[in-house]
């Protein structure tokens, strides 16, 4: 017996209270059903040389399409096999298409090739126990935290403004990426905004960047977020990273009014 033996039926047109109305049965069509998202697994999100992305086989008659140029995947995109070897910082976007079904939702995987440590954290905001390991170690250890924020790889903060001061070895950089967790069900929100100032050896401001993120919007599922501040190539000696949390958990949330948690596992130099 296989799944193909079962005819898929739409939800019964049921429950007209009156018995006098005839029942109707609507058989769902293939084109009414959406494919599930691709199942993607990655060896290491942060890697020194390369990493491998693994994909589960899509449903029969379907293919997994992907892009690495930031564009949404479609029928004209590359077809993914069982695995993809990645050797550079990349944003991979995947989608299942085919079989007459509606295309799946997209799955995005951001991967970072990290250079050997070229920045240090001089001063850091104070995390809150029990998520208060050493920031100067944890946030530049090139280890990705898991989906479990209690795994010892995340620093947790419950304050509205954070400041980190970093020093560099003079290497070329094109900005900073902050790796955070967003799990609103656990009262963990992404930052509302970021800003960075880069300085040279005379303490002169070289350049700065700023970004905002829609942290207050409802997001039902836990996810990793990589928030980037990009600049033209520079060789800074020092930087100040400002992170602003939401002032309070939004009204729609059960924790409305409380200060949200912010969880960070890495500050990445681009």
């Amino acid at each position: 017996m296989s799944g193909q033996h079962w005819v898929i039926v739409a939800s019964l047109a049921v429950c007209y209270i009156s018995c006098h109305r005839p029942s109707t049965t609507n058989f769902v069509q293939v084109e009414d059903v959406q494919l599930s998202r691709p199942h993607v697994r990655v060896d290491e999100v942060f890697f020194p040389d390369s990493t491998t992305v693994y994909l589960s086989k899509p449903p029969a008659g379907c293919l997994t399409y992907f892009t690495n140029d930031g564009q949404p995947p479609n029928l004209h995109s590359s077809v993914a096999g069982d695995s993809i070897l990645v050797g550079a910082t990349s944003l991979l976007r995947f989608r299942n298409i085919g079989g007459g079904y509606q295309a799946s939702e997209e799955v995005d995987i951001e991967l970072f090739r990290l250079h050997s440590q070229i920045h240090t954290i001089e001063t850091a905001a104070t995390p809150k126990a029990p998520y208060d390991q050493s920031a100067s170690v944890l946030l530049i250890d090139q280890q990705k935290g898991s989906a479990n924020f209690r795994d010892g790889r995340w620093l947790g903060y419950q304050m509205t403004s954070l400041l980190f001061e970093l020093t560099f070895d003079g290497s070329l950089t094109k900005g900073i990426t902050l790796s955070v967790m967003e799990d609103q069900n656990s009262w963990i929100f992404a930052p509302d905004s970021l800003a960075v100032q880069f300085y040279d050896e005379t303490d002169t401001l070289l350049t700065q960047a700023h970004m905002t993120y829609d942290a207050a919007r409802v997001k039902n599922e836990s996810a990793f977020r990589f928030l980037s501040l990009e600049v033209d190539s520079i060789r800074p000696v020092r930087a100040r990273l400002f992170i602003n949390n939401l002032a309070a958990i939004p009204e729609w949330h059960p924790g409305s009014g409380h200060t949200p948690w912010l969880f960070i596992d890495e500050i990445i130099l681009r």
Partner: protein
Amino acid sequence: MVQDRSGRILLLTNHTQNNVLIYSKDGRLLDSWGNTFPGAHGLTIKDEGGEEFLYITDTELGLIVKTTLDGQEVLRILNPQRSQADGNIRPFSPTETAVAENGDIYVADGYGSQYIYVYDQQGRLKNEFGGPGPAAHQFFNAHGIAIDERDSTPKLLITAREKNQLKYFDFAGNYLSTIDLPGAYICRPVLHRTEVYLATIWSGNKASRSGFISILDQHNQLVSAPGGLEPRYHNGQLERVSQAIMLFQHPHDVCIDEDDNLYIPQWNAGQVYPIKLYRV
């Protein structure tokens, strides 16, 4: 969801305007009753001496009620008040029941203590086994229970949902064996002919809206997964299962009628009506 002898489909809900909804097989609402079970969860039907009875669990009230098909209460089983190691009373939030031929009632306390309690037909506690833990005879969410009579030795088949497993026990509570279904967060086993049907409420990494239906053959091999990817075995081991199409969100039970059609009610699925799969 169960089917009675006259072919009607009975759906249990936790809505106290209508805990039990009764449908024809083509989906017409025939009747409804029940307004006292805010945590109604498990529903079993049992023919006892020619009369059919329902066994309803309520995870909020912490009780099991036996009723007639039209809702007349016959028996009520409350918290057995068992003590745990710290001296407190064990929680009791029963998820499902199974009734043996001798009338013994097996209760899976899947949202409470993780014990399986055994009562006689008068509701007196006779035995208990299982409990929480990683050992083979223990459970982590003993969500469902059924009696497997497919071979000459009837035995209990019990869900360990968070472990993605089914476990066999004899009626005395001795552990027998485990069926691994990696990636399948299964609700309760429903035996029909030689197959076992399981509403798989989540799959893979337990993402929301990732459910499908699992069907085991007489050898307890996963042979069909409506809504899921085709099952694959490698060296005798089932590869991790996952959803293929988003037909189901969170299926919570499977009812099979005499024509082998499937009826699948769901939990937390936008109040969508049960989905019917026609056997072809």
